[in-house]
């Protein structure tokens, strides 16, 4: 069995698992799946931008925006679950492409700082407009719009599944050459016939829409939002740790990483949870040590192991008649 069919099979299994657990799973399984799916979608979305050379330090901007759009469109406009989610999706896409437009050709650290500023800026705005957002005290989702546990959980599973499918489609098409070119050198990408600004707008629209959708579903899940939750730096951190840990610029990396991150988070919470702050300390250390010692992430580490094993296995096979 070659790696491609193996990957496809694994992908199919993952899809089936995340889509069936909301139906059949126990409450704790459903909860873990919800959190994992949320992180999968965020991680894939972050990785999408990173793959085009756009380092986002402001994924919480999209997340929080989506959350507020959901709360406002449900509470103020009485929109039902699915419609509110579409609204948050659209808001994320708009904000993403808008950010792409105003950041123009900024790259690297300058782009990263702008996204960070955008997220923090939105947080200040949310605090300062209490009439709309409830200000620092936060806002509750009107209980009559809560669509039920199953719908929310299934929504998140679907979101993760669709996000992965989109990323998979992209990796299959020629677009992934465009990503690589953008990451290496935007000027050169332009010579290959990629129009960088358009490309960035498209990527950030997709990435923003996904992250915003996740924020929207999370808002339904939690039923409450305040600026500190909505624009929590934690969101940005976990959505970058997952791809880094799993394997940046790859399709399966962010997914593997998201599963690993949720697992590590739960494990530290269960074992050392009585110490305040320990789980984020662990995440910080993971980030540092992945960058220094595991630049290709778990996925790269595994395929290295695999290659070494098959390299040593090869000669024995040859020796057999």
């Amino acid at each position: 069995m070659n790696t491609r069919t193996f990957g496809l099979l694994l992908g199919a299994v993952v899809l089936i698992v995340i889509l069936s657990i909301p139906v059949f799973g126990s409450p704790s399984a459903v909860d873990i799946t919800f959190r994992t799916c949320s992180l999968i979608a965020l991680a894939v979305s972050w990785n999408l931008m990173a793959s085009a050379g756009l380092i986002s330090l402001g994924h919480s901007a999209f997340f929080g925006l989506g959350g507020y759009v959901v709360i406002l469109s449900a509470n103020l406009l009485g929109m039902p679950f699915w419609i509110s989610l579409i609204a948050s999706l659209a808001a994320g896409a708009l904000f993403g492409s808008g950010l792409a437009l105003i950041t123009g050709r900024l790259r690297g650290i300058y782009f990263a700082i702008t996204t960070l500023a955008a997220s923090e800026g939105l947080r200040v705005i949310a605090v300062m407009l209490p009439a709309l957002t409830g200000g620092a005290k936060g806002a509750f989702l009107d209980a009559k719009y809560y669509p039920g546990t199953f719908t929310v959980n299934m929504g998140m599973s679907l979101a993760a599944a669709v996000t992965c499918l989109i990323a998979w489609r992209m990796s299959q098409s020629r677009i992934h050459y465009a990503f690589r070119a953008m990451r290496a050198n935007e000027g050169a990408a332009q010579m290959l016939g990629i129009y960088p600004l358009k490309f960035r707008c498209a990527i950030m629209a997709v990435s923003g829409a996904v992250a915003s959708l996740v924020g929207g579903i999370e808002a339904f899940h939690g039923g409450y939002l305040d600026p500190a939750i909505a624009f929590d730096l934690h969101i940005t951190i976990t959505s970058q740790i997952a791809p880094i840990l799993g394997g940046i610029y790859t399709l399966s990396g962010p997914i593997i990483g998201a599963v690993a991150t949720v697992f590590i988070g739960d494990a530290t919470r269960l074992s050392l949870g009585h110490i305040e702050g320990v789980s984020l300390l662990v995440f910080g250390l993971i980030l540092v040590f992945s960058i220094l010692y595991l630049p290709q992430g778990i996925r790269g580490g595994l395929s290295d192991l695999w290659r070494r094993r098959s390299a040593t296995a090869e000669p024995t096979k040859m020796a057999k008649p």
Partner: protein
Amino acid sequence: MDLLPQVFSDALLLAGLYTLMAVGLSLGFGVLRIINFAQGEMIMLGAYGAFWGLTLLGVDPIISLPVLVVAGFALGWLIFRGFVAKVLDAPHINQILLTFGLALAIQHIAIILWSGNARSATTAYATESAFVGDVLVVYSRLIAFAIATIMVVALIAWLRWSETGRATRAVAENRAAAALMGIDVDRIYAMSFGVSCALSVATGVVVSFILTITPFMGFPMLIKSIAIVILGGLGSIAGTVIGAFVLAFSETFVSYYVPDGAGWAEGIAFLLIIGILILRPRGILGQTVET
């Protein structure tokens, strides 16, 4: 009563503090071309150092300042040798995420050690104040301003006239040419990182008797420092001073003259970052942004 003199004096005192806060980041970026996202945590550590010095040993922050500055330098040196040096030639993303991870780790070590509770270093002069004409001057702010000014002037003088300072500027301009002058570039790197951390620790000591101290205090100050450095132009110390004044004056004016201004003032830094990067990415005095 005319508010303007009061606004002006508040803004001036704040600007001095902001200059000290941002100048470490500016130096680190100018020499290493790396934005150290852990810079804010150095401020936090400095504030805790001053707090514990006062609480446990009864040593006034101003007295413990030199010791803490030296400790900050040593810590910066170690962080550089242990972590940052390894990503100097790596892609931007590795540098950003590495220092981001360090910031996260340091912040949460502080939470584990000292809990998330807010604390404050109550010195004798923390709450004293006096009227100069119509203007109310809070002593702690005045002292902070004085210390900040002394340190920034000392830094500029050191960069300008000392052998090592001159070498540091040379490395910032052209590291290969600097090596040809007999300058040990690696040592200058480690030293600049150390000095930049020491300056942030000094900032922490100074704010310890002005602000409440929490493990989370570093991040907003980091963002403001970034805004100042970008505003002044990355890598320019003179620009940083100007940037600090612009931020301090705009924040102070907004908080006095805009309804709910104190809250909106917190957003000015972000507005400036986005505005400057879009309109004039070189900042006021800096070099061209690599696109």
